[in-house]
């Protein structure tokens, strides 16, 4: 791998931060249309580059305020080419090629050019030099139209065909030569390509490996020894189906697959990105996703609810709850809540929501379009701001009373009777706790007043230096008593704040709602919210809309129509993107390897026909994920061994044609959960809050007068959190993952700032140090060795057999027995024996066979 690629394009890398970089400087109030003019002479790419990267930002930032729409100081406008050509009251502002004769340059140098005044802004030397250089070049200026829409006003939709934008086809599974190999259509698509390339598919893997593979892939947990034995002994042709149906029906399935979705959401139990602001209700969204996967909620419905659940009809209170909770999708990500500039803050949230919809449902990078038409894909600035109007018409945040902080909006959930009864009971108990604390406060406040009174008496009736004893002691004792009471009172104050904070008030979830007056939004010039341009009607992405899109009724945000449009059958992307992601989780690579990006710069699918066949099946089967997964894991292809084959590896080193199964290292959750399961520490869990905010030591900033919001520290965990699956542990955004979840920090858990459909899988020394030395791994090795030694078994051989069945889910081999015996027999002393068993388990739990799914 050569780290230094020469290939790069300055214009090709335009970016989000530019918007902010500009916006945080001087406010530019508004701009409107100027006079269009005939196309300008040819501008070279280098010139355009200079203009776009240096000159335009500078003009916007420093000049437009006084020489734009709002003001035309000295009669001069600098927001179009026509503007400087016409010039101000004293004539043209500049002479192309002649900076030294140009009034503009003179003016910014602080001189008084003939008939003009000097500039009101002070430009730095470098800024002046940029302008001078531009004029020297001949002032190449692409601004035909005046800036209202940013870079390109009306670039035509690039209709050039790109495979991902074409309608989904329903290809027939091809004929194959070896008709004995395929079990179904998937296999025929794969085999026909392999045959065309003269590559034989790998032989079936052994039953134990298949069982471990499918159990880990579907549930994130390994099979138990009993499950292994049962499967190996089941000779019926339905054996695999029985396993798969059992796994799909288990709760563990949702706990595994929900996490894949949360990776795309940037889920965390924290609001914003700084100051450890807790998101105490985020878990409701996490549990909703688990429920959705376990109940096999049709994926189109899943999309709808996350975009517009609050606007959808619901037939039961529970459904209504879920639909409201689902919109947390739009809010539980990398959203900044501490910007003083609220206009900026809201625009950033809208941008986040557009990016998320783009990545999660469409496999497109829509963030780029905030500032300009997409450089590679036919997505227009107008498409972006059409969607921006929809999200800007939805309420996501509100301004708090603390400092410059905002917070994320919540909605009260309708409660079924049982929930309400439970909560009211909790509220009663809570109220009595509060009354007790208040009574205590009154008692101590009275005592303090008494002590203070005595103290005044003692001090006033005593000559300086002479203490007078009362029955409560002298001045020293009274002062000590006073200090003690004050301390108690301040602790109690904090306790009361904390009680108020955790009061089981209404049941709420993070959720959006439509604003009172939904409206179309305006383009912001180069993403600068203080430079609004033309108003754009709310709408969607043109290139994905062969038919007219649904009309947005007045008085609504348009989220409901957005949801409908997303899952419309003529929008080819959501189904393709989703089946490809599912494929990636099961085969280790997507058919399109750039799983989050289906644009023109992404990879083409290795098997386009198979991808479309899967997408069609998926939609025809009611967007059922379970049916699709079932179909894939029961294929012959999924049974292939992952064994290396030198010749095939030379011809297809990346295994793009799938001549074998790809191996993969267990991801962070799977690794921790598997360790817990094998050591016997794992317990099942109904979900619920992650942050343990009922421990006062976990909550800071409770004083209502603080300028920063309430924060969390996670000093203390519920004991059970050490035994629960990793998905239920708190996720933080700005620091290392805490406590029982520390393993996430090391094994490629994606930072919750990312929206990541695929995780990387690295091998670095810090992981090895963890596996060699951490308390975590050692305690589980110890637990496992104790378990195996406590089994009512006669000899080491049976113990080792059981151990291998439990840890690696297969029988031990003779060679391994030999190695193990040598290792264990090194000492006969009982304690040392136990130590050796623990060490043996430790080695087993950090071995490649344990860390990988083959």
């Amino acid at each position, binding site marked *: 791998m050569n780290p230094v690629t020469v290939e790069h394009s300055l214009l090709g890398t335009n970016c989000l931060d530019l918007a902010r970089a500009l916006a*945080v400087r001087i406010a530019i109030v508004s701009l409107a249309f100027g006079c269009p003019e005939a196309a300008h002479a040819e501008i070279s790419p280098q010139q355009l580059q200079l203009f776009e990267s240096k000159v335009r930002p500078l003009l916007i930032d420093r000049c437009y305020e006084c020489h734009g729409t709002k003001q035309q100081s000295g009669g001069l406008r600098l927001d179009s080419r026509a503007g400087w050509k016409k010039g101000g009251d004293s004539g043209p502002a500049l002479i192309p090629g002649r900076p030294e004769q140009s009034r503009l340059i003179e003016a910014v140098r602080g001189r008084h050019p003939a008939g003009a005044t000097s500039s009101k802004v002070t430009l*730095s030397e470098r800024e002046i030099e940029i302008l001078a250089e531009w004029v020297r070049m001949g002032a190449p200026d692409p601004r035909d139209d005046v800036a209202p829409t940013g870079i390109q006003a009306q670039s035509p939709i690039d209709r050039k065909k790109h495979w991902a934008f074409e309608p989904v086809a329903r290809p027939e599974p091809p004929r194959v030569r070896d008709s004995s190999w395929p079990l179904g259509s998937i296999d025929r698509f794969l085999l026909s390509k392999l045959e065309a390339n003269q590559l034989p598919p790998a032989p079936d893997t052994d039953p134990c490996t298949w069982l471990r593979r499918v159990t880990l892939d579907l549930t994130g947990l390994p099979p138990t020894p009993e499950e292994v034995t049962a499967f190996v002994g089941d000779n019926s042709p339905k054996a695999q189906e029985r396993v798969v149906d059992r796994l799909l029906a288990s709760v563990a399935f949702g706990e595994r697959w929900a996490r894949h979705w949360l990776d795309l959401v940037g889920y965390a139990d924290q609001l914003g990105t700084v100051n450890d602001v807790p998101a105490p209700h985020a878990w409701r969204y996490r549990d909703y996703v688990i429920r959705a996967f376990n109940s096999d909620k049709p994926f189109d419905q899943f999309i709808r609810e996350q975009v517009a659940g609050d606007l959808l009809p619901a037939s039961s209170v529970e459904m209504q709850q879920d639909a409201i909770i689902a919109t947390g999708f739009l809010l539980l990500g990398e959203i900044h809540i501490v910007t*003083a500039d609220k206009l900026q803050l809201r625009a950033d949230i809208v941008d986040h929501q557009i990016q998320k919809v783009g990545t999660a449902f469409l496999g497109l990078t829509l963030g780029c379009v905030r500032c300009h038409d997409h450089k590679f894909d036919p997505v227009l600035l107008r498409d972006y701001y059409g969607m921006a109007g929809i999200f800007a018409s939805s309420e996501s945040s509100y301004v708090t009373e603390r400092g410059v902080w905002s917070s994320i909006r919540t909605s009260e959930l309708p409660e079924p009777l049982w929930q309400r009864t439970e909560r009211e009971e909790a509220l009663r108990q809570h109220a009595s706790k509060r009354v007790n604390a208040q009574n205590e406060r009154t008692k101590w406040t009275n005592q303090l007043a008494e002590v203070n009174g005595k103290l005044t008496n003692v001090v006033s009736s005593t000559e300086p230096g002479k203490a007078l004893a009362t029955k409560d002691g002298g001045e020293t004792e009274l002062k000590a008593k006073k200090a003690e009471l004050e301390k108690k009172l301040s602790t109690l104050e904090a306790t009361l704040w904390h009680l108020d904070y955790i009061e089981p008030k209404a049941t709420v979830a993070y959720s959006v709602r439509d604003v009172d007056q939904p409206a179309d939004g305006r383009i912001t010039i180069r993403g600068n919210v203080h430079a609004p341009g033309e108003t754009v009607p709310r709408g969607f992405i043109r290139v994905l809309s062969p038919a007219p899109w649904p009309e947005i009724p007045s008085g609504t945000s348009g989220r409901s129509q957005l949801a409908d449009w997303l899952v419309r059958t003529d929008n080819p992307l959501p189904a393709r993107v989703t089946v490809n992601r599912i494929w990636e989780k099961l085969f280790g690579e997507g058919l399109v390897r750039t799983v989050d990006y289906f644009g023109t710069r992404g990879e083409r699918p290795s098997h386009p026909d198979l991808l479309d066949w899967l997408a069609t099946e998926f939609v025809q089967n009611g967007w059922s994920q379970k049916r699709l997964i079932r179909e894939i894991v029961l294929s012959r292809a999924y049974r292939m061994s992952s064994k290396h084959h030198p010749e095939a590896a030379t011809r297809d080193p990346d295994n793009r044609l799938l001549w074998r199964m790809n191996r993969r290292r267990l991801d962070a959750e799977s690794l921790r959960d598997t360790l817990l399961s094998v050591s016997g520490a794992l317990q099942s869990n109904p979900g619920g809050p992650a942050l343990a905010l009922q421990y006062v030591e976990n909550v800071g900033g409770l004083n209502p007068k603080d300028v920063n919001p309430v924060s969390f520290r996670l000093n203390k965990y519920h004991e059970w959190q050490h035994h629960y699956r990793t998905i239920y542990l708190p996720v933080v955004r700005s620091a290392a993952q805490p406590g029982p979840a520390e393993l996430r920090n090391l094994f490629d858990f994606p930072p919750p700032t990312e929206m990541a*459909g695929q995780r990387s899988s*690295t091998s670095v020394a810090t992981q090895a*140090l963890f596996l060699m030395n951490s308390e975590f791994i050692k305690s589980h090795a110890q637990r496992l060795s104790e378990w195996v030694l406590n089994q009512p078994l006669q000899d080491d051989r049976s113990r080792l057999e059981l151990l291998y069945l439990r840890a690696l889910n297969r029988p031990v081999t003779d060679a391994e027995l030999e190695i193990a015996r040598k290792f264990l027999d090194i000492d006969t002393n009982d304690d040392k024996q136990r*130590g050796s068993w623990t060490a043996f388990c430790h080695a087993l739990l950090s071995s490649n*066979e344990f860390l990988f799914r083959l």
Partner: protein
Amino acid sequence: MNSQRTTANSNPFSRRHFLQTTACGFGSVALNALLAEQASARSNPLVPHRSHFPAKAKRVIFLFMAGGPSQHDLFDYKPRLKLEEGKKPNIPHAGREVTVGLENSMSLGPIASFAPRGQSGMVMSDLLPQLATVADDICLVRSLSADNRSHDQATLQLHTGAFLSLRPSMGAWVSYGLGTENQNLPSFITINAPTDVRNHGSAFLPAIHQGTRLNAKPSGPKDLPIQHLRDLASPESEQRRRLDLLQTMNRELLQRIGGDTQMEGVIESFELAFRMQAETPKLVDLSHESQATLNLYGVGKEPTDKNARACLLARRFAEAGVRFIQVTMDGWDHHGNIRDGLPKMCAQTDQPSVALLQDLKQRGLLDDTLLVWSGEFGRTPWSQDLSGTQPLEKHGREHQPESFCAWMAGAGVRPGLTFGTTDDYGFRVVENRVHLHDFHATLLHLLGFDHEKLTYRHGGRDHRLTDVFGDVVTGVLS
């Protein structure tokens, strides 16, 4: 997702072959540096790479002053603030900079006296007396500029160039570009690192380039300088026996199922971990340093001990061939009572930072080491009082990204130079503005890279440390 994913090795048996032919137990392989280097050359992305053009600097030591040191009291002397002290600030700002605690805000003059120092006449305040003695060795930049006024986002921008999206830290970019010279240590070490792990993260670059956190002053034998560095419970011989068993298992598996780049990578990561475990304790053990050196830094004395240890370790890691070393000195966030807080912070940091410079110089390391001292932003010329009740003497200053100061020294940097000018209030830059992107471009330039060509393909496009920005600040180059 990245498009330069590791693909299967064309000779997938190389690693296995290597392990077998050396026919050694794990420990002996691990300790043999020569073999380690051979192994690295095949599959290790950290093997030293060549830069685009001959470089002045081979490594970077970045002293990060977390919180935002006040340039008005240290480096950027503005007599006008003194003249207008106590008056409502008459500073032309756009209004959106105003945050909290400014109802009671006034112009606040420097809290210490300033004087020209050294041959160069570089102006500095009395609060950094040690730095004043090396004024002719450093280049003072008074015109840095950033885009964000909240700590975390500004800190992210300083470290990664971005704050709205997750990007690799500059240390990770440097590791990616140059690899490292010591295969027994990480290429990027961050000492007393900020809690936000994104500041030393590798984002989409391979994780091997991420910063390794190191605690310079462990609180006891159980508090390790690097997390999980040692097995605290079992003796080393036990551990070796266990690791030999583990590698036997791993070898047996590879034989059974055939080569696999990633599995070979895991085997190698255990070897590196074992070497790190052996190497790091020696490096962090300061007992072999002379008393004179310890005194120079201020080790064992308060208030310098913590930072002194960190700076001395930075020198030791630089000598050992680590590519990018960061030392964080936190505590510059003086919103209130800056008259009390700032001098204390200076006392904790001045001697260790300057000792590092002098030590590098006397060992000849300064010639190819770039030393940088900077906060994430500066502070305002007007005062701030969060309580709203204090007199001016107890006020502090608010954050200011519009302009702030930093210094650089060493390889390729013009010594004795004062670069950049701000307006009469020390608010906006009026000459030689150095945006953080320009700073990053310059840093890469000193390491021999064209910042526009050091790229990595991710999510369909080529990314750079400087995004689409940045100009090399040629004015500060020697």
